[in-house]
Structure formats: structure tokens, C-alpha cells
């Protein structure tokens, strides 16, 4: 899964979609994921990174992560 290439993500977690004109905000973890996706990291790399670095259980993260990806898809910010 990849971020569509004209989507802009700022340092502060601000996302702008020039296609729709919509903007979005991300929390810290959301920003982290979006940045890793735009660096081309895979799902399992992202998962490992979170398990290593954050206080979170594997299943909780997996659930939250797949839901977050669904949201990104719903908002048309990612492509296969």
C-alpha cells in the first residue's frame, strides 16, 4: 500500500490532498505510519517498528493499524 504521490504530509502531521482540496490532521502515531508508508515501508516493517518502540500489544496494534489503513483508503489517500 502506498500513499498517493501528490499527497503532502507536513512535519506537524498536517495532510493536504490537492485532488480534493481536503486537509487532515494526524496524531503522532498516525503521522509515524503515514511517513513510513511514504518511505515505502511494508506493513510488517511498520508493525515491528511499533511493537519495538511503543507500549502496545501486537493484537491491539494490528487492529488499530488495519483500521487506520481502511480510513486512509476511505479518504482516498492511498493506492494499492
Amino acid at each position, binding site marked *: 500500500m502506498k500513499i498517493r504521490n501528490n499527497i503532502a504530509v507536513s512535519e506537524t502531521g498536517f495532510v493536504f490532498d490537492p485532488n480534493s482540496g481536503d486537509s487532515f490532521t*494526524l496524531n503522532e502515531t498516525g503521522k509515524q505510519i503515514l511517513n513510513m508508508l511514504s518511505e515505502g515501508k511494508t506493513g510488517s516493517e511498520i508493525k515491528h517498528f511499533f511493537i519495538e518502540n511503543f507500549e502496545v500489544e501486537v493484537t491491539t496494534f494490528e487492529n488499530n493499524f488495519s483500521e487506520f489503513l481502511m480510513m486512509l483508503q476511505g479518504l482516498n489517500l492511498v493506492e494499492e
Partner: protein
Amino acid sequence: MTTKKRYERPIITKINAGVTDKFGMRPKMPIISKIEGVAITDIIAKYGSPAFVISEKTIRKTYNEAKRAFSTRYPNVQFAWSYKTNYLDAVCQIFHSEGAWAEVVSGFEYDKAIANGIPGNKILFNGPDKSKDDLIKAVENGAFIHLDHFDELYELLSIADTSKKRPKVAIRVNMDTGVYPLWDRFGFNYENGEAWNALNRIMLSEKMDLVGLHTHIGTYMMTPDPYAVAASKLAELAVRVDKKYNHKIKYIDMGGGFASKNTLKGAYLPGKDTCPSFDQYAEAITNALINSELDPNKMPTLFLETGRALIDDAGYLVGTVLANKRLSNGRRSMIVDVGVNMLFTSFWYEHEIYPVKEVSANAEDTTIYGPLCMNIDVIRDVIKFPLLQKDDNYVIKRIGAYNMTQWMQFITLRPNIVLIDINGNTHIIREKETNESLTSHERVPAYLK
């Protein structure tokens, strides 16, 4: 070993132009981690989740605020604790220890007040449902009987025929105070002359002592003005009785109905910014009485049966998040362990709910559901809420009124109720129910066993 970062589930939120919570300016939701100095997580660890928590300090403080508001404006004021609002014995005893009498509306509540050590002559007996036995008992004990309808008046007259004691009575009066809907189903109407008629019958019977006039004009009254109208009308009735019979009414009872600081559903502004203070209600009521034609040397005692405004703030519900999920429309929903079975007032109020642990400034529009497998079980339709995870704790504020009496035993059992005393010690004042508490009242016919 490196310490790991605090985790919060990832979210992305669309920014809508024109909303006040623009990025970077979003106010962080405050947290409540302690009640009267006691950590909520400790309460849950000790007494289970969910649990009701009542602050004795807040009860006493609120009571004294209300009392001061009235007694600095009027010579003789007496509060009577409205049992139906919260009739846990420990709660009633706190009010009684502050000097409140008891206001009851059924034989059950009457007996509870007596068991709490309140003598009959400090009980106001209201309501449309007083059985013959209740009335006999009330006459014997010298309680103040507030007549609701003519059938009750006649029944009491016949009791008076055989009783050694004279019943002490007031009538409940309903009236137009400019607030709609009119509460005209209780008591005798003022405008159509019914109340005056009832007073004449009582006086002419010569079998009872007419001591008071009572009204309860509604609940959660958002302005004090209707109280001024009501107090004037009761004063006018008292003056008429005095003129015609040379008989002084001893008390005027203004009932309850002061708004608590909760926010009504659909209200635009929060209740704590809009609801009148005790001082404003007191000003309206006492001015109306003082400016009436009542004899200034024999002003009747002013009774108040304030319920919700005295206890709402003292009550909390603490609990635990059971799950988060996303609804088909994309909205976040959170399932918590408190349902409408124990938070009946969520049908009326947008209850304030807070996390108990530090959270980030991120929040999402969230629907908060109770744990019941029923569509009606909604605690908040939509609230901008921080990203709590399963097993995190939360606290719901201002739930002291009506929930611990109007609750339903439905699907789950009622939890512990914990009192925090003025020294910060905790006490169970109602033990959590067990299956046995319920099944002990059931009977299975032998052939079904």
C-alpha cells in the same frame, strides 16, 4: 533497556473550515484522576468497575450553599430532603444531620424516613398515592399530609372522625406560572378556583389543621421567574384564608425543581453556564413572599424540597472501557461498562465524561454506548472524546440525582456504591448485587424444577 513511547491508536481527522477547533487550537479534554483526593483507579481496584461514588463533602457544601442563599434573605427556612431523588440511607442521614426534614411520596419512602430516625412531625408526605393505612399512620405520627386530590381529602376526613389526633394538612396547588407544559396533574388548580374550594372545605370541616400550602411547579426550571409567580399565588391564598377564617398558614412549601448543572439534551450551552444559582432562585422566591400581603410579623416558614440541585454534583460513576469500534458511517464508537440501566439520566442529559489518566490533545467524534445488548443503551450520542483504549478508566460527573433510585435491574447487576467521607475514607453504602439478591425473590413452582 530503552523505555517505550506511550502509544495512542493512529487517527486521521478531516479539517472542516469554519469550526472552532482548528488544528493547533484544539483544547485538550481535562482529566479527572481523583475524587476528593482518592484516586479513581484505587476505587476501581478496591470496589470493582463500574462503581457509584458519592462525596459527603460535596453534599454538605452544596446543602450549606443552598441554605445560606435562602436564610440570608428570609427569616425562617426549612429544607426537606426529597427522598425520591436519592434515598440511600447514608445519603439521607447526611442531609438529616445537616438539619433537613424528609419529603416522601409513598408509604415505602415514609417508612424509610421513620427508620432513619425522622419523627413524623418532620416528614412532609406528598404524592397521589397514600393508602388508607399510610394516612392513618401519618396522622398518628403527626406528619404533614399534603393533599393531592379531593378523594384523598374525603378519605382523610373519614379517618379524622375516628382518630384521636387531628390531621395536619397542606394542599398541593398547581398553577400557571408561565412554564409549559403545565404540571396540572398533581394537586388542586389555582386558576379555576379548585384550590380555594379545597381550602374552604378543610376549614369548614373543622376536623383538620390547615398548616401549609405546597406547590412543585416542575423540575429543572431554567429560570427563577416562575417561582416568583408561584410564591405570590400561594401567598395570596394564605392571605385569603387569614381574612376569611382569621387563620394563619404556618408554612409555604415551594417544592423542588431547581436545575442542577447538568446540560439538558439538545441544549446549546452547557448547564453550568446557564442554570440559575441558588441565590437567584432564593431572590425570586423570597422577594415574592416579602412583597406579598402576608403579615410581616407572622411570616410563614418557607419550606424547600430541593432534590437534584442538592445531590447531582456529589455523585460520580467510575468505570472501564470495554471496546472501541468503528461504525459503518466511519464514526468511532466506544463501549463502556455503564449502561442506561444504571445511568437513567442519560435519557435527559449530555453527561460529562472524562478520562482518568493523562491523554493527548487528540480526540475524535465518538458515540459512547453502554454494555447492554439494546439499541436504547446510549450514554452520549456524540462527544469529542480522547482516544481511550480497552481497559482504560473513565468517570462520569454529576449523576447523584435520580440514578440510584430510578435505576433498573436489567441485564447486569447493580454495582457497589461507595461514599467518600469528609476525611477521605471510603465506605460501601450499598453493596453490589449478586444473582442471589434477585433469585431470592423468585419462586419456581415445584413442577418446573
